């Protein structure tokens, strides 16, 4: 009965999906065409991006080589057989700030809640810019309530929107990939788990304890060269220690989505050697027609598909 109610609630509240989904990262552009009528992924595309085309930042504009990016997007659009219309866009995690806030009670009014969120965030981020956009979701409805809050600067979002707008595509969803890689993983995952998203220039880690999101953190990293795995392992270990200290919980497994254009297998092998817990790779299970590499790189996009 609860499952049925959840399905109905989901049906009436889930964000609808446009027919084309893109992910822009600093290393590649991923695209996915989804047929809502057929309820399946119809086409996918993965194209590398030259270094420096996109430089993710929370404060500054991200697109450094617009001509190159436009060419790649048009090529991807051709591959997906979409020319215009609504699209969903995942932009790098580093363009966002993510907070996990605990609140005793939630104000009923939306504007009151946003004011409360701003006030709470200002405590952690005193120089909060004025032009920020906030999106949030209740991740723990029972007391103390937990709210996952995502911030981005309007200028950064508008830069991507106007860029796609010039290519006759309306960006109707802007979100971040690291929160979407969780979905394609195994459904029977343990209750205490670390989920990570590894990209060329950053690492995002989410920790679940008792199946509840307990911690989210992202870190800018330069994974070029052979030292990448060491940096990642260090960050993961620090996070595990923090969780053990605060929650007195031992994380059973780390599930990582390797989002590098090249060298994912090598990086995974090294992390297995360096980390004190089992390290699994997140591979989207929803698109069996794709190979393992595609399912790993496309995991955040596939994570949006219902």
């Amino acid at each position, binding site marked *: 009965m609860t499952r049925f109610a959840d399905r109905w609630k989901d049906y009436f509240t889930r964000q609808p999906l446009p027919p084309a989904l893109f992910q822009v990262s600093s290393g590649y552009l991923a695209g996915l065409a989804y047929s809502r009528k057929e309820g399946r992924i119809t086409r996918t595309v993965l194209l590398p991006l030259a270094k420096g085309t996109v430089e993710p930042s929370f404060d500054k504009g991200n697109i450094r080589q617009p001509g190159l990016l436009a060419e790649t997007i048009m090529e991807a659009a051709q591959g997906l057989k979409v020319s215009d219309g609504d699209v969903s866009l995942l932009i790098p995690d580093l363009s966002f700030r993510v907070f996990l806030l605990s609140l005793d009670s939630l104000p009923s009014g939306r504007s009151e809640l946003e004011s409360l969120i701003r006030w709470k965030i200002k405590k952690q981020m005193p120089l909060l810019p004025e032009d920020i956009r906030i999106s949030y979701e209740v991740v723990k409805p029972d007391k103390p309530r937990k709210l996952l809050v995502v911030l981005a600067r309007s200028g950064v979002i508008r830069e991507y929107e106007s860029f796609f707008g010039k290519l006759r595509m309306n960006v109707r*969803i802007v979100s971040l990939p690291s929160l979407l890689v969780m979905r394609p993983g195994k459904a029977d995952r343990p209750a205490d788990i670390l989920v990570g998203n590894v990209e060329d220039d950053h690492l995002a880690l989410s920790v*679940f304890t008792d199946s*509840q999101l307990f911690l989210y953190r992202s870190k800018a990293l330069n994974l070029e060269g052979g030292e990448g795995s060491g940096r990642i392992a260090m960050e993961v270990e620090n996070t595990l220690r923090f969780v053990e200290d605060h929650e007195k919980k031992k994380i059973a497994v780390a599930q990582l989505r390797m989002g590098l254009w090249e060298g994912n297998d090598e990086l995974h092998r090294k992390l297995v050697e360096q980390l004190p817990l089992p390290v699994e790779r997140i591979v989207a299970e929803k698109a069996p027609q794709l190979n393992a590499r595609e399912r790993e790189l496309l995991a955040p996009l596939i994570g949006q598909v219902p």
Partner: protein
Amino acid sequence: MNGRPAMNLNLATHPLRNRRAFTWLAGLLSACLVVVLALAVFYFVRYHSRRVEAGEKLAGLREAIATAEDEDRQFAERIRTVPPKDKLAVDVLNGIIFKKSFSWVDFFSKLEEALPATSYLASLAPNFREDSSLELKLKVVSQTLDDHIALITNLNALKFSGIMVQNEDRNDRGQIVSEISLTYERLD
């Protein structure tokens, strides 16, 4: 979160919204509207056809009434235009029928009712008129003037018409002898 992703996080300027609830509501309202409209059309057609049917019946009745009135008029016209010879024969026949059916018992019981106890009839001369009424000439002997007046009043009350005292005299015994002409019409 239960391992589920943050699906509804969206920072787009014009975010896509789930409008299924509105769509369903609109659909439901439209369906209700369609049902109401269908019922309205059904009842309109049903009562319209009944109204038409009733109208047709009414028109038929009006036609029948008009026909009856026409026939009535035609009969009246025919009666009016009956040739005098036929009319005479009809009158004679009517007169015979009237005379045959005239109830003398009723007539005399009424006359007796009108006559005061101390008065009596000396003579009576009836004459049937053409309009099926009976013209009478009476000679009544009354003891007093009051009896005479009571007689006139009673005759009036009993719907005798054209009451006219033509002659009034006292005989040698001091009684009032009056000659009265009047008309009697059968009311039934």
